[in-house]
């Protein structure tokens, strides 16, 4: 995707957000909406500047960064699964599963290396955060054993 297309899409999105903010801020009591309105108006003006500049020949030559959508999707999916499972499965099960899957599928290291790294890192997490710093991470199904 070209940077000009991305920027024009962002301009459209940002102007829409600013319009919603202004509409909501107008209904706020007292002077609570003054700053949101001021900031949004400034946002609209800045977006117009960006929109105008995307039409310059110099701007259209600006290089854009490519994204490996497959790997991005896999990592994002893993993160969503990790966060969803942390509460009921427990951090000490969800985290190693996430690490193992990431090491095998994204880093493509041999299974034995991945398992060693996962176990080692999980032990560090347990010792540093749960045992030493007493961070109350969700323990999930392990709660009956670890809580005591």
């Amino acid at each position: 995707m070209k940077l000009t297309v991305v920027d024009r899409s962002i301009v459209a999105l940002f102007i829409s957000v600013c319009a919603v903010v202004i509409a909501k801020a107008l209904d706020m009591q007292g002077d609570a909406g003054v700053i949101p309105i001021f900031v949004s108006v400034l946002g609209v003006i800045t977006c117009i500047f960006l929109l105008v500049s995307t039409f310059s020949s110099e701007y259209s030559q600006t290089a854009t960064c490519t994204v490996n959508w497959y790997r991005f999707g896999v990592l994002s999916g893993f993160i969503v699964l990790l966060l969803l499972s942390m509460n009921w499965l427990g951090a000490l099960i969800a985290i190693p599963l996430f690490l193992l899957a990431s090491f095998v599928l994204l880093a493509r290291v041999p299974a034995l290396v991945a398992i060693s790294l996962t176990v080692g890192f999980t032990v560090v997490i347990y010792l540093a955060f749960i045992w030493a710093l007493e961070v109350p991470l969700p323990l999930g199904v392990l709660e009956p054993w670890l809580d005591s």
Partner: protein
Amino acid sequence: MDYLLNAIATVFTFEALLVLFLGTLAGMIIGMLPGLSSTMGVALCIPITFNMPPELSLILLGAVYVSSVYGGSVTAILLRTPGTDASIATSLDGFPLTSSGRGAEALGIATIGSLFGGLFSTLALLAIAPLLSKVALAFGPQEYTLLALGGLITVIGVVSDIPVKGLIAAIAGLMLATIGLDNFTGAQRFLFDRPELIDGMPLLPVLIGLFSVSQAFNLCVPVAGRVLDENTKLRFSGHFPYFHDIKRCLRTMNRSSVIGTIVGILPGAGTSIAAFISYNEARRKSKNPENFGKGELEGVAASEAANNAVTGGTLIPTLTLGIPGNAVTAVFVGGLTIHGLIPGPQLFTDFADITYTLIMSLFLANILFAVLGLILSRHLVHVTRIPGALLGPMILIFSIIGTYALRNEMFDVWLAALFGVIGYFMERWRFPTAPLVIAMVLGPILEVNFRRSMQISDWDLTVFFTRPISLALVCMIVAAIAYPVWRHLKHKRALNQVNPVN
């Protein structure tokens, strides 16, 4: 003088030195870990100090505070994952230096800069604390409004190669800063039915998301992603910066230490503003301003000297007036009161022994983290050899646990993940992330003080020009905007004279 001698005697006991060493090491590690901040480090140590004598407690808290600010620079330089906003400016030049195989040199100059700034501000704390506190007291809402505005403008100018995009990022940050209950009217603003947002958009999850989680994406998403550029080797021969490099950076470190100390004294301004103002000044005064942002040692020295100088600076109003300059010193005040030490002028009279012990321990902590930093940086630099797809998930887990530990809320973790994705694409699409975060920090200061000024003056904007300090700040802001524009126009005119066709 007696107080000082007693303090020196106390600091050089075995227990004090042991606490100092452990505190410095712990602070460095906390600062290095992406997701753990100085505030969190000091807060985590307060329960440990419950059963300790007040002198040792303050030595521990002080050591953790100063060394964690330095520790943040290590990950900012090696991995571009600053644990706090204090090290964002450091990563601008530190990470490009690492990418080009000069990570050890960057760490070396960061250590020297941090030591320089830390010692300077501790000296200021010792020598001129009461005098400078009086200057800070003269600041009213107008001055704070202008200070926040100036900080914001500086940041946009510094980090954006396309300033309009920097401005849009800053506006997005200001919008996020308006979320939550309004302090003046109690109105609910943009809460989206989420009670977690009543106190405002939490800063640290956003910060961790934009800088740490996005870096995990940067490392994992490319097939061969890694911290170090392909085909580049770590230059261990440049482990310590060359003498001429240190000499070249000396003036910058001097200037940045002064800026850091002064900014630290002003409550609310914080380490990030000091680092960015110093970075901007270093670039402005440099013979090679075009190298900034691409891997310039002077940039690292400026940022690190300034953010470490803030540590002593923030303690000046905290200890003498009881006004904490930032979140860390607010936690620090909590640590003091646990031991019956009420911050204020009596700390320098009734509890002078303890207070001067703290100040002396800060001197030692600064020297200790510099020694440890120089020894450990040789080993820490190997982190850059780890493949990105191995390092990325580990950074992500630290970030997630660090975010969760702030309030034990999964909402914060989701927020960090969301801002991680936003940060990843902002970088891809050349929107700088620093203005967004800084605007989130400065937004509330700007809004509260602007509205307070307007209430006092009955919406008369000339109030910003009637006080000498605010007028001076207005002049500085105008100069900060006008100077780069004037220089750009001058450069363009010179180019036109050389090549009239363009």
